């Protein structure tokens, strides 16, 4: 394992600038998740670290060694692709052993067999070692792909949305497993996703990527409670944060210069209007089972928030809204620290 850093890296494809002057460092044993929408440059960044793309400028350092001009084979990285990139005519065991059979590694057949068995157990595929890789379910294939990365002990594991093609249940299971495996191995990991739950649950630190730039980097807690700007705030929270003009609901605590107030569920207290004074009305209530989504209209704005499943709000109810320490943003969209 090793630390990895990117210094002022830029990469363009024709006229599109995929990565713009990006600097990022990952410490030894750290799990860093890059979160961003499609086209933010997440995959490009990962491919730059792996050596599958070359940066136009800047440098990439792995374990104190400048690898910017090295081929992927000599960078000591492992890559898990979004697609199931298994070697289709090989068995699970042969797929897992593939990276170990490189002439650059001098391992005996016994050592290889032991490593494969060990990793197969880790990713829970040891019961299917003899199967052809095409005869597996999607979840199993991706487990083999992850196993093929884990079988080596590289400087860094690079994972490109490895769970995005799986169904929700499997995604949840593998998310936990990956975090467990990473903690067990003390692995340095750079993981790319557009799924905020994956980012929040697995990361030691989250990097928010937008249009090729690293907008904010911090622990999941920091990113959630102290987003640098509107963009970061909008990326996290379920349901998404409500962004309201500062004058929509009176809030005495708002610092001067506040243009937009960001209110998540925990920033809102909703009560049924009592003495004729109301801020808005309930549009409808979505019953999700364990909780309800409450859709409100306030002035010309729509709000979505969570309520308990046993709350008695119903369509047409008039309500009052109280803000509790929400997030404040200035005219440029940056958060005003309060």
């Amino acid at each position, binding site marked *: 394992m090793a630390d990895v850093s990117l210094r002022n890296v830029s990469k363009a494809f024709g006229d599109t600038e995929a990565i713009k002057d990006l600097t990022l460092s990952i410490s030894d044993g750290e799990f860093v998740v890059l979160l961003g929408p499609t086209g933010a440059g997440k995959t490009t960044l990962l491919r730059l670290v792996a050596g599958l793309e070359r940066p136009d400028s800047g440098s990439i350092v792995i374990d104190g060694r400048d690898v910017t001009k090295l081929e992927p084979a000599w960078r000591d990285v492992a890559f898990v692709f979004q697609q199931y990139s298994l070697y*289709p005519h090989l068995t699970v065991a042969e797929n897992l052993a593939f990276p170990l059979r490189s002439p650059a590694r001098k391992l005996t057949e016994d050592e290889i067999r032991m490593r494969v068995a060990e990793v197969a157990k880790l990713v829970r595929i040891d019961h299917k070692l003899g199967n052809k890789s095409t005869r597996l379910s999607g979840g199993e294939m991706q487990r083999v792909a992850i196993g093929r990365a884990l079988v080596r002990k590289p400087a860094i594991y690079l994972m490109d949305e490895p769970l995005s093609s799986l169904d929700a249940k499997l995604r949840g299971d593998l998310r936990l497993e990956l975090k467990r495996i990473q903690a067990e191995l003390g692995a340095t990991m750079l993981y790319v996703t557009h799924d905020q739950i994956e980012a929040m649950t697995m990361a030691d630190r989250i990097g928010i990527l937008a249009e090729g730039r690293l907008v904010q980097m911090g622990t999941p807690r920091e990113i959630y409670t102290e987003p640098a700007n509107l963009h970061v705030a909008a990326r996290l929270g379920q349901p998404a944060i409500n962004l309201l003009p500062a004058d929509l609901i009176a809030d005495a605590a708002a610092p001067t210069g506040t243009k937009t107030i960001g209110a998540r569920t925990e920033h809102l207290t909703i009560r049924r209007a009592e003495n004729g004074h109301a801020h808005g009305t309930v549009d409808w209530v979505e019953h999700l089972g364990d909780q309800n989504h409450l859709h409100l209209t306030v002035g010309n704005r729509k709000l979505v928030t969570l309520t308990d499943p046993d709350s008695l709000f119903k369509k047409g109810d008039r309500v009052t809204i109280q803000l509790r320490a929400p997030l404040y943003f200035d005219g440029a969209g940056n958060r005003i620290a309060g």
Partner: protein
Amino acid sequence: MQDLPSGKSVVTDTTTSILDRAAEAAVRATPGTLARRIRGLSDRMVAWIFIAPTIVLLLAINIFPLIWAIQLSFTNYRANRPNEPIKNIGLSNYSRILTDTDTWIAMQATAHFVFWTILLQTLIGFTLAYLIDRKFRGHAFWTTIILVPMMLSPAVVGNFWRFLYEPQIGLFTYIISFFTGIPPTDILMLSSVKLAPWAIIIVDTWMWTPYVMLICLAGLRSIPDYIYEAAEVDRASNWRQFWSITLPMALPFIMLAVLFRGIENFKMFDMVNLLTGGGPGSTTEVASITLKREAFEKWRTGFSSAFAIILFVAVFGLANIYVKVLNRVKSR
């Protein structure tokens, strides 16, 4: 690749349902009086009426002659003596063919031709496809250039190469003699017993290697880039990537190309007929040339029918065994 072989039954099912639906739509769209006239027919019946002309045509020009040929193969019928009584001679045509040394020589010539053309075309075709797939600058242009021979008519190709092979004026013989120093008049590509079979193999390879290349190229293009990228990160050398990814994944396509060329060359006629006509002697007399001689020079119609049936069964049988193997390779 894996889902290719299972497609057959599904296709038939959808065809019927599509036909049913089309017939239904036709009934609905037909004006009142006509609709009343065909109301007695079921949708399936209407569908059959629609496809009947095609089926009749197929029966008339494919199935019927085949059955007739089978029938003739048991007789001593000669098409140039229509008035002679036709005698049923049982299996004696077949036994004569299978014990005749001449037909076995023809079969050997065919096997020699098929083996070497397939070997050369597959090797050169795959190599070309592999190089084109590197996507170098101008690869599309070179692909088109390479495909030109395949687009020509075999008759044209045959005549061209007859000139190229001319001992006095032929470009091919000139080039060979330039590099080897052998006087061009000694290079008798088409009339030397030793060289004539190779002359035909060279022309066929020249013409059909592009076809093999095209199929191999389709195979190579079907391998996703990320598999190679994964292998690169896994430190597999180019050599290892070729043997453990490229070749196994392109193999079903290569085998398909071999199948197509094999069937095609087993019944090769036009080019051989134009270049050597089977000569010198019978060195290049492949099976279809023998067949033509028996049928239309010696007019032994019954005998040649039997020979045609034997060839058909042989090709059909070999191709079926081959397809079984191919499917096994594909489902690996």
